[in-house]
């Protein structure tokens, strides 16, 4: 049974855990997909996050779902819980990861030395460990197409910057704790930068505007 909270008057958060877990993430993604496939009256969109899914609705339309004396929140909550009850939780993806080529040279990786020093290893080892892993995209957020991926090896984990950089170059690979991500655009950012890719991950001209979707697997290779 998820924890349920309103997010204003037009959205509800369904929380399946308070930590990063593949299990909770698969429930969130499965529920989100089920709602997208068979939307209820007034459904706008569902947004999976690490361990939750937030369901957005139009209260003027969702009003139709109400039983006498019920609020829109109650009606939508019941609706979503019904769908959850009837949803088979998808299995986590295990097939071929998306490969991202990365330039780890110093000009592209301003924090690589910091990460190495912090963990008492050299930069070549950081790269070796980082590229050995296969990472799961748990959610997209922060910027169009930005993938939140986990979990990197604790041997190369590093905290965010105290003060974010005003400008992070597009394509930068970042680390924050045991998460990793890729900046789809130039933007301010607080993650530790350990490399850079030329691969476009935000594709506004394409029919589908992002390279990644929640649940994808990703592998980084040095170029």
């Amino acid at each position: 049974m998820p924890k349920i909270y309103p997010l204003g008057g037009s959205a509800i958060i369904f929380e399946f855990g308070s930590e990063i877990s593949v299990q909770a993430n698969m429930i969130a993604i499965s529920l989100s997909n089920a709602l997208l496939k068979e939307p209820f009256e007034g459904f706008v969109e569902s947004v999976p996050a690490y361990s939750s899914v937030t369901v957005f609705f139009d209260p003027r339309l969702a009003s139709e779902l109400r039983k006498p004396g019920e609020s829109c929140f109650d009606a939508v909550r019941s609706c979503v819980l019904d769908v959850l009850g009837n949803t088979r939780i998808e299995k986590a993806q295990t097939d071929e990861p998306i490969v991202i080529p990365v330039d780890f040279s110093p000009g592209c990786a301003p924090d690589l030395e910091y990460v190495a020093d912090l963990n008492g290893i050299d930069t070549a080892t950081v790269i070796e460990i980082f590229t050995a892993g296969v990472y799961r995209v748990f959610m997209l957020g922060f910027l169009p197409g930005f993938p939140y991926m986990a979990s990197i090896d604790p041997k190369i984990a590093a905290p965010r910057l105290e003060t974010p950089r005003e400008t992070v170059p597009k394509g930068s690979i970042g680390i924050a704790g045991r998460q990793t991500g890729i900046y789809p655009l130039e933007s301010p950012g607080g993650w530790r930068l350990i490399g850079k890719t030329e691969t476009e991950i935000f594709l506004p001209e394409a029919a589908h505007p992002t390279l990644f979707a929640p649940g994808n697997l990703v592998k980084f290779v040095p170029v």
Partner: protein
Amino acid sequence: MTLLVRKSGILDTIQDCGRFGFRRFGINTCGAMDASALRIGNIILGNQECEAGLEMHFPAPVLEFGRSAAFALSGAEFDARLNSEPIERNAIHTAKKRDVLEFKKRISGQRCYLIVKDGFKLDAWLGSKSTNLAARVSGYEGRRLKKGDVLTIEPGKPSLHSLRASTEFDRKNSRSYPLRFIPGPDYRDLTALSMLALRNGEFLVRKNSNRMGYRLEGPPLHLLYDDEKISAAVTFGTIQLLPDSQLIILMADHQTSGGYPNIGTITSCDLSVAAQLGPGDSIKLEPVTIAEAEDIERLAEREIAILKAGLQMLGAWKS
């Protein structure tokens, strides 16, 4: 057919009600800060309620009409002049070719909307014409207007008789504005003292407040527990507690997800009030129940529906 930017304003962007359906890809919703004002302007002109308009801040642009067009202004009062003659908000005006629209002084509010009959001729991206400034896409070339830019207006019916919609939507100036919010997941984890401070305190809108969010300054607030939150969805109006113990209200250009404690989300209709506040203004935050919030929103929607029905009855346009 066209609107020439003779002089650009500090931030003029094309915005409709927002881009919905793509939050799960990190694509933020953008859209008008004061959605009520945008909708009212569109209703007055007989447009689709969420047709894109030009959202202007002050200093606002100087615009020249390339041909005759019907337009309306809504939202903030910037002392608008058409060929130096003052013109009212919430009314239909007809500009002729070479007429110049400019804004002399910020009298009240922060965002003024220029709505034209049948809207601006622009391609939609993912179903919306709202400018996404972070991604530099959509609206007018994904950016604010610059001198020399030319907006194309859809060909519409230029001759509509003058109509002034008397609306009660102008908020009276008050010392501090109450914004009602529905408590969020972390509200109950506020310390007792912090909860009192939140409910009774006044919060100043700081200088570094903009379309992304309003940084507030007020009594420092603390939670009972210090644990790291994992990222989850947030929305327009979400109030977060930052590490410096101060609050931020996420506004129209907010990012789709956030990892800071979620204290609550302001009701949609009060967001239109918030949208017209700026640095130096003072607000109060008032928690309401879900049932209360739903009633508040229903009333606000009913007012807009009444306006729409009233104008339709006057037969100001053929729908």
